[in-house]
């Protein structure tokens, strides 16, 4: 479903992604773990077209996105393909990024109505079922500023789901939450995963990575150092760097 081939990205002569390969099959759940600045967020943002990269390509369901230094790169084609990818892949941010001037309901219906051309009524009934799914019935007419961090992040998930994506990208969805709210957000993601949603999640929640994901990729310095089944990565990591990181995390 998502294929990443030999991805290179540098910024200011500093390499951020360094020849990275990753394949995410349909229905799988891949957790990206690794220290801050290892490239987890950058990778997710590249998939979504929020950041460009120099070399390699990303393929999402056949939509190809080439690095800007690749011969096959085409500026005009890129814009169209980025848009196609964004319609297939939903994204949830660390900072929620809800639209503060809109109610919860409008946050969710805005894109379906104005991008997909869905009728307001249809969008609203879909939004209602999504709010139920993220356990936020009754909050439809609140504004983001009136919600807790955990509630806001669950709205952000509902907002991304409203576009009926085939895959979801989570960029450290619980990193700016108070500990008591982390669980409610993870619970929603777990439910989503159990329904078969293809998911890539950058996270510091090792318990979640170990218990929920079908694959774990350990990133360091822009490379995937190790990629495998969660059991293998957590119980018998092959690389020294993975071991060092995990032992620091488990303390």
């Amino acid at each position: 479903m998502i294929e990443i081939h030999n991805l290179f990205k540098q910024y200011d002569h500093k390499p951020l992604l360094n020849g990275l390969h990753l394949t995410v099959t349909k229905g799988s759940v891949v957790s990206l773990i690794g220290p801050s600045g290892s490239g987890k967020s950058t990778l997710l943002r590249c998939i979504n077209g929020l950041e460009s990269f120099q070399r390699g390509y990303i393929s999402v369901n056949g939509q190809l996105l080439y690095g800007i230094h690749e011969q096959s790169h085409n500026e005009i084609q890129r814009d169209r393909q980025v848009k196609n990818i964004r319609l297939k892949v939903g994204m949830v941010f660390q900072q929620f990024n809800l639209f503060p001037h809109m109610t919860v309901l409008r946050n969710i219906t805005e894109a379906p109505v104005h991008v997909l051309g869905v009728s307001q009524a249809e969008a609203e009934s879909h939004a209602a079922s999504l709010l139920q799914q993220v356990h936020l019935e009754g909050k439809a007419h609140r504004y983001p500023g009136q919600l807790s961090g955990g509630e806001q992040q669950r709205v952000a998930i509902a907002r991304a789901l409203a576009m009926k994506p085939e895959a979801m990208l989570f960029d450290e969805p619980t990193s700016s939450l108070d500990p008591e709210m982390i669980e409610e957000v993870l619970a929603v993601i777990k439910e989503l995963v159990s329904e078969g949603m293809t998911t890539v999640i950058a996270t510091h929640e090792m318990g979640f990575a170990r218990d929920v994901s079908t694959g774990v990729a350990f990133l360091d310095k822009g490379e995937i150092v190790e990629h495998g089944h969660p059991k293998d990565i957590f119980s018998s990591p092959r690389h020294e760097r993975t071991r060092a990181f995990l032992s620091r995390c488990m303390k």
Partner: protein
Amino acid sequence: MNTHQSIFRYCALFLVCLSLFCFSTKNSFAYQNTLKKIKGSGTLIWGFDAEGGAPYVFHDVKHPSKLIGFEVELAEAIARELGVKVQCFQNAWDSILLSLQRGDFDIALNGIEITPDREQSVLFTRPYYAYAEQIVVRASDNRIHHLEDLHGKKVGALYNTVARRMLEEMGDVSVSTYSGQVEPFKDLCLNRIDAVLVDLPIASYYAKPNPQLRLVGSPVGEGYYGIAVRKEDAALAGELNAIIERLMRNGELKKIYNRWGLWNTAQEKLFLSEGLLQKYTECPPAASEKTPPAVITFLPTLLKGAFVTIGISLLSMMLAVGLGLTLAIMRLYGNVWIQKISTAYIEIYRGTPLLIQLYILYYGLPNIGITLSAFTAAILGLGMNYAAYEAEIYRAGIQSIPGGQTEAALSLGMSKRLTLKRIILPQALRVAIPPMTNDFIALFKDSSLVSVIAVVELTKSYSMLASASMNFFKLGIVTALLYFGMSYPLSLYARKLEKRLKPHDRNP
């Protein structure tokens, strides 16, 4: 409720203080005997406005630091007769009598028509020049021959002059009022008006040498210029009267007027005895009653001015908002060249005075074939100037919205355009409202600047009425209240709007 009450209380307190100040200082500037002071100090301080122009008092083009004009020569002759030197005091013509009363100078000598209104506040000497009003038209125009032909026409006049009052009393003349003497003739050449009615000396000096223009009909509405002194300076007035008579008898006055091409047979009336001169002004002044007219009689004119002010402000603000937003978006999202164009526009419009921009729009553009009406030029001038400020406000507003908002919108598949329209601008607007309100109130008051291009708005109406009636204080308060009455609701509305658009916090 509370804030309203306290605001009105403060206003009332302010007005009381202001009026106390005015009454207590009323006479403190006046000298007991100005004549004695002049002789003692050896200088006669002469008030005039060189901006009024030729042939009265103006700067010599060849030696710009030197003042010339028939009144300069007259003032020098008078000073010589008094045995003193002239000291010049430049003062805006509109407020020349007010400054005389304040004691800024000893005499006001600057084509001041003797009218009963003015005689209520100052003392005039015997006349030193007999003027009449002259009609000027385009050389090619054969429609106008007499004063009566001006009915239904668009006619230019200098403001606060007898000519303007004559035109207004004709009822159906649409009067364009100017403060400079050059501008009405320019507008006449540009077909913006059909005729100009001005004092004969001005017509002789400016229109006669211009082949595009023609003087028609015989002069109408005769009157006299006199030298104004303070009411209590009867002694000075007596001395000046004697001097004027001496200058007339010895032919010096005629010599001066001849040099400026101003002598005509009408001047012989000046030789009449003072008793006969009492019946001077042919044109009855609007308010000649002994008691000064109540402020209420001026209200319709002031309200008319206020409507013009509101119209100009609203239309130019709409232009400023639209153009400003376009400029901000060009500067933020355009390619290099579009960004440069926007930046250049903003810098040029912010870096040059609005007054000059207005002059260029109104008097400069006709040189390249674009002739705008005064109202259009006023709206374009104000709107284009304020657009530069609005653009920067919007740019700051847009930039204050966190990048995460754009990313979230894009990740949902929104286009850049849709993101800007539905996500960024609504939030940026909220940030921009307080500085926008500020700007709108400033524009509101800056709209008074457009009076330089013959638009009569509130401030212009005020200054015309005030200098005609010498009632600067009361009319000033009324005008200020009108401005306040227009801008305060605006502030209230902006505050309400801001509240409505406020981000909704956790505890509403």
